[in-house]
């Protein structure tokens, strides 16, 4: 526990926390009641923006109707207060309902195949429905007049209570979620969902969890806000509020705690100072500012400040998540020898796209530690077959096993958790992270201790982003990630494409060596016969979606039908 505490909380963080706590504690002694009320308001709105940021800034889940959750919390408090029920209970009920609603919306809108903009439409419809409900169910909400919430503890008391709740909530969420495995997975999913999935992270679940936490924090902000605002009306759940929180967050800076509070603070104070003078022109101005921020400064004020202060690249890339390799309790790899179970198997697999059959009944089993190369002419179905093995395509017929388990209907991340690693034709790495952080994510999600290889050393660097690596380097980084993740089976799609001759021979030897040392099975699609000869225990020739012949390289190259079909020898 203390070790985890030490890892998650740096000296700077502790200092920032103590500083914030002291400043908040001192504020009532220097501020007059009116500015103090403003500060209280800014704090709850900041918490609301922080809540939205957990979904939007951290996990990349869009919500343009987040006030629906804020409103649920606020109405929870207000309805309780109106009926002489303790406000805490009402607020808690509001948070609970918000989480349930978010679960429904998230399950639908964040599904595997949902369009990315679905969440935008859903959340917009949600906020409209919420404010409509608040307007028309007058027996509960008192309609458009709203419910008056009286605070019994005076300006200073309300302030301290609010500040304490906000500080504790932010610190807790930061420590438990953002600095933990979840925070790391949020980053992974946001930057490269495909890679995250093939490292065993469930994209759907991660996003839904982010959305749930986000809804809970936003509802909590609403519950706390009710006595501060004093009047809870349908607009608390409505479209204007939803829009405003987006503006706060965008202006302040996505993916940062300081950005959420800075944006909320600036706009709230600006609203009080200018809102009366400018009226609806103030909101128009905010809209224009929002457009300008989206267009010219997508990282917001905090992002601009960080760029100006030249914060280290890795810090900006990680956005507060802890991306350091963990020496967690990884189970050592089971002894490869002696196991008679095939590492991965496919029986009678058929897969077509529309009317075009691509795989027409393939049987293949790969023993632990075996290296199988798939060769065949273009259009033979090699890449599709790898996709079927990895779970990207669901076959129309047939079965896939990993270590004895039927995984035919399993999603890619579930197969990954069973030890199936995947390398792509176009390398898939976390482009917006440094190479070192890429490796750190892979290791933190790892199944087994990494295979010791000299390959990792060159990527132990924080000086650039993976985006700036050349194609060959990205491929090497992908390989390093997948190997340090500790796969039991590795699928490779043309690992040597784009490499020089020497490099590809070198790569083939490394792969061979890994397979021999760790018992990891390899299934590789490869065109270069020299590499195939170097690596393969067994060569499988695919043609027209069927296995034409399989055997050692010598047997294959002597085979007449192969020479005709593949090598073009008549």
């Amino acid at each position: 526990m203390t070790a985890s505490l030490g890892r998650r909380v740096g000296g700077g963080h502790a200092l920032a926390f103590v500083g914030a706590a002291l400043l908040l504690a001192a504020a009532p002694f220097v501020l007059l009641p009116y500015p103090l009320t403003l500060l209280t308001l800014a704090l709850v709105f900041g918490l609301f923006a922080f809540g939205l940021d957990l979904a939007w800034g951290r996990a990349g889940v869009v919500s343009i109707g987040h006030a629906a959750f804020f409103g649920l919390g606020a109405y929870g408090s207000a309805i309780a207060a109106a009926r002489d029920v303790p406000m805490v209970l009402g607020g808690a009920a509001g948070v609970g309902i918000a989480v349930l609603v978010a679960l429904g919306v998230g399950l639908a809108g964040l599904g595997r195949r949902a369009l990315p903009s679905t969440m935008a439409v859903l959340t917009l419809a949600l906020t409209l429905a919420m404010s409509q409900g608040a307007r028309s169910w007058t027996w509960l909400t008192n309609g458009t007049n709203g419910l008056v919430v009286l605070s019994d503890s005076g300006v200073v008391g309300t302030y301290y209570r609010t500040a304490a709740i906000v500080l504790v909530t932010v610190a807790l969420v930061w420590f438990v979620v953002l600095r933990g495995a979840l925070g790391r997975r949020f980053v992974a999913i946001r930057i490269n969902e495909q890679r995250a999935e093939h490292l065993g992270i469930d994209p759907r679940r991660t996003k839904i969890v982010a959305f749930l936490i986000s809804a809970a924090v936003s509802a909590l902000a609403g519950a706390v806000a009710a006595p501060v605002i004093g009047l809870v009306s349908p607009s608390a759940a409505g479209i204007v509020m939803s829009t405003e929180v987006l503006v706060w967050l965008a202006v302040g800076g996505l993916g940062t705690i300081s950005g959420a509070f800075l944006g909320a603070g600036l706009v709230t104070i600006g609203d009080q100072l200018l809102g009366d003078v400018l009226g609806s022109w103030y909101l128009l101005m905010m809209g224009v500012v929002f457009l300008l921020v989206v267009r010219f400064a997508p990282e917001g004020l905090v992002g601009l400040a960080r760029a100006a202060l030249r914060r280290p690249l890795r810090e900006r890339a990680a956005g507060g998540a802890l991306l350091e390799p963990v020496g967690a309790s990884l189970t050592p790899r089971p002894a490869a020898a002696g196991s008679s179970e095939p590492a991965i198997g496919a029986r009678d697999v058929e897969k077509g796209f529309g009317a075009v059959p691509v795989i027409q009944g393939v049987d293949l089993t790969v023993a632990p530690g075996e290296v199988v190369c798939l060769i065949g002419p273009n259009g033979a179905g090699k890449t599709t077959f790898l996709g079927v093995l990895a779970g990207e395509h669901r076959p129309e017929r047939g079965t896939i096993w990993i270590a004895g388990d039927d995984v035919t209907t399993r999603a890619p991340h579930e197969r990954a958790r069973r030890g199936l690693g995947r390398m792509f034709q176009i390398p898939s790495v976390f482009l917006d992270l440094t190479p070192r952080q890429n490796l750190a994510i892979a290791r933190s999600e790892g199944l087994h201790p990494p295979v010791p290889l000299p390959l990792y050393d060159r990527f132990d660097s924080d000086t650039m982003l993976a985006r700036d690596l050349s194609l060959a380097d990205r491929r090497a980084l992908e390989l390093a990630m997948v190997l340090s993740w500790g796969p039991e089976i590795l699928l490779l799609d043309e690992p040597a494409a784009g490499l020089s001759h020497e490099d590809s021979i070198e790569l083939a030897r490394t792969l061979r060596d890994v397979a021999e040392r760790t018992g990891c099975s390899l299934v590789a699609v490869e065109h270069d016969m020299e590499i195939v000869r170097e690596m393969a225990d067994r060569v499988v020739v695919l043609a027209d979606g069927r296995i034409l012949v399989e055997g050692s390289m010598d047997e294959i190259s002597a085979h007449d039908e192969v020479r005709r079909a593949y090598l073009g020898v008549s």
Partner: protein
Amino acid sequence: MESLVTFGLAVLHLFGFYALLAVGLGLVFGQLGVVNVAHGEFVMVGAYVMYALDAVPFVLRLALAVGVGLVLSLLAEWTILRKLYSRGMLATLLAMWGLAIVLRQVAEAVFGATPRSVPFPVQGSVDVLGVRYPTYRLLVAVVSLLVVGAVLLVIYRTSLGLKLRASIENRDMAAVLGISPRVMIAGTFAVGTTLAVLAGALNSPTLGLTPGLGVAFLAPAFFAVLMVRPGSIAGPAVGALLVALLSSLLRTYFTETVADLVFFAALVVLIAVRPAGLSWRLPSWLTRSSERVA
């Protein structure tokens, strides 16, 4: 019988309105891969143009509204969206939402938040199978459907439409064949949003004009797009018919709030069941391959 005719006429009117919206939304979605969250605001713009220029004859005003829609959408595409496509769909989506905020607030700043109304250009009612129905509503429904038909005809039967479809299907390949992606994107956005402006302008007499009137239309229009095969251009019109039916049914039997909630629940269920749109044919490889590309 009478109530059935009344119901049918109500559905027809809504169908015309949502068909204009959904076809436009579907076009922009097909071309940009992003739902235009400002779509409803363009409806609002159309309605307010009709309100603001009330001295101008009605038909001329419609033409002016279409002109305003074209200029506004081209301007928005050129100044805001164009630079953002490369930053991914989230940036485009947010920029459209920013545009929606600005449009709403401009309307509020200029016209205020109090509801406004536009007088009917055609008074009176006609007799349809024994039911008196306002002439203007019937006229609007017919005109809307004719416009949708004309747009689909252009898209499916002219070389310009062919280019547009090619660009939606595979922008890079179309570009290699000399179809400028920039022109096609700007053109699609302009046509799609102008259809929404036209819908707002045509229906302005039957709508209560407030700056926020458009936001409620996005979800039904999106629903219509999701009801049909993904990527289909004519499909959303069919989806619009289903949406018109559903929402008329709900409005007949429930209060407005409950109808809205049920509609929302139906949307959630639809998305949960068919996240990438309903394909009425069984497993379509199109949906999967488009998912891979995205």
